């Protein structure tokens, strides 16, 4: 397969970026999107040019490191997968593919397609953890948890923190990410005890970092590679408002 790639190139955070067009040829349909970029970079290096910088790590859809806004979709047009798990057969042979970095005030571009997603780490540090002693696995297994709660918690815990939600949101809101973290812990007894503090601290940090407000549009859940539902946002709203009303 052959493709024309329109890729955002930006020297560093302070420089003005622009699109540049490249061509890749003889790409197998079973090449992953990131492998296709590797092939392009290989060509660029051989031609003595600067390769395209992009984030990646595990390449098996669980680390949340890859990003990329491809043809108008976070993680590309494929449903429920991260960019690394999307294959070139998803695209039409000979088509032009536009590749952009995440665009959100809280995710500044570092270089080319790489953005700084440290804001999500800061939100996590504000309260996305359990600070009580939960002991080891046998202790955890000794607490009966309804299957429904465990499933809901696990659905939320599937969040890999890739940033697709805020990158897709027309308001640059991180609500789906924060909701997933708050929800996954709120549904388990170990996390429940600090639920109020967690919801308040994480929302406060999210606001402080300049993320936008949720307008219940739902673009985030449509683009989320882990298909996290906005029902978790409803739970976050519930947790936060209940905590505030108890203050």
């Amino acid at each position, binding site marked *: 397969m052959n493709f024309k790639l329109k890729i955002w190139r930006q020297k560093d955070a302070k420089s003005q970026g622009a699109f540049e067009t490249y061509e890749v040829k003889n790409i197998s349909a079973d090449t992953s999107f990131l492998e296709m970029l590797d092939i392009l970079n290989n060509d660029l290096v051989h031609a003595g040019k600067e390769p395209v910088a992009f984030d990646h790590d595990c390449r098996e859809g669980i680390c949340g490191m890859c990003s990329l806004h491809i043809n108008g979709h976070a993680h590309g047009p494929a449903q429920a997968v991260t960019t690394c798990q999307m294959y070139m057969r998803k695209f039409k042979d000979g088509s032009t593919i536009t590749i*952009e970095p995440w*665009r959100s005030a809280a995710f500044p571009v570092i270089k080319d397609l790489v953005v700084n997603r440290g804001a999500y780490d800061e939100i996590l540090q504000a309260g996305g953890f359990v600070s009580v002693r939960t002991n080891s696995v046998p202790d955890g297994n000794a607490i009966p948890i309804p299957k429904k709660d465990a499933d809901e918690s696990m659905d939320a815990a599937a969040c890999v923190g890739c940033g697709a939600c805020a990158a897709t949101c027309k308001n640059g809101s991180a609500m789906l990410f924060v909701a997933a973290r708050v929800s996954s812990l709120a549904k388990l007894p170990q996390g429940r005890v600090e639920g109020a503090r967690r919801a308040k601290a994480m929302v406060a940090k999210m606001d402080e970092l300049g993320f936008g*407000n*949720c307008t*219940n549009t739902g673009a985030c859940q449509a683009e989320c590679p882990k298909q996290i539902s906005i029902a978790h946002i409803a*739970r976050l709203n519930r947790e936060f408002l209940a905590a505030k009303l108890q203050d």
Partner: protein
Amino acid sequence: MSCFLCNSSLGKKLVMSVTGCCLVLFLLFHMAMNLVALINPAGYNTICALLGANWYAVVATVGLAALVVLHFMYALILTVNNYRARGSQRYAVTANEPGVEWASKNMLVLGVIVILGLLLHLVHFWSKMMLVELMGAEGTMVAGEFVHATDGATLVAFTFSKWYNVVLYLVWLTALWFHLNHGVWSMFQTVGWANDVWYPRLKCASKVVSTLVILGFAAVIVGFFVMSICGCGVEVCTDACCAGHNHAH
């Protein structure tokens, strides 16, 4: 507690949700009230007299105005925040995500249309009814005829005998329909009363409520326009004037 309503994103959204809910309830009441004008103009004028410059009606009007102002001011603040959060650099290519309502991305624009319609509506009715009474007058001259301040039926008949008013009000109602379509289920989501089981139900209820509100209002507008074309509007109106006048005094 008071400050989280001003300085936290979720607190601000709570204000939007609660004020929005009150305004939807008001719309349902107003729509039901208007339908009376179609069924019994004299009865409608009785309601107009009840809701004239009486203290409870004035208090309620001030309350409603406060709700509209709060809802709109918070919408502006939230939209400015959102605009900033999106950043200066935008995507060159965007796509429509599946399951995303068009209205949810255009609530401010729709809201502005609703507010403009509201201003026109206040000029058409409120300024000739409650305001006139508050100023201590009996009524106003409308198109060369004296109309009593509680004679809502005549004002309705007069206003909707003009085709351009009918068009403007229908545009206004269309914007309101889209606004409510997203707004009604959204206010439940914002306070956290929603989940995957309830989304289809809430969205269905949202469509039912917004359609009922709009159909109710449109029935009166179109009804009076048709009556004015058929020439029966004037008679109905004259009867109503007398009935309303007698009842009010």
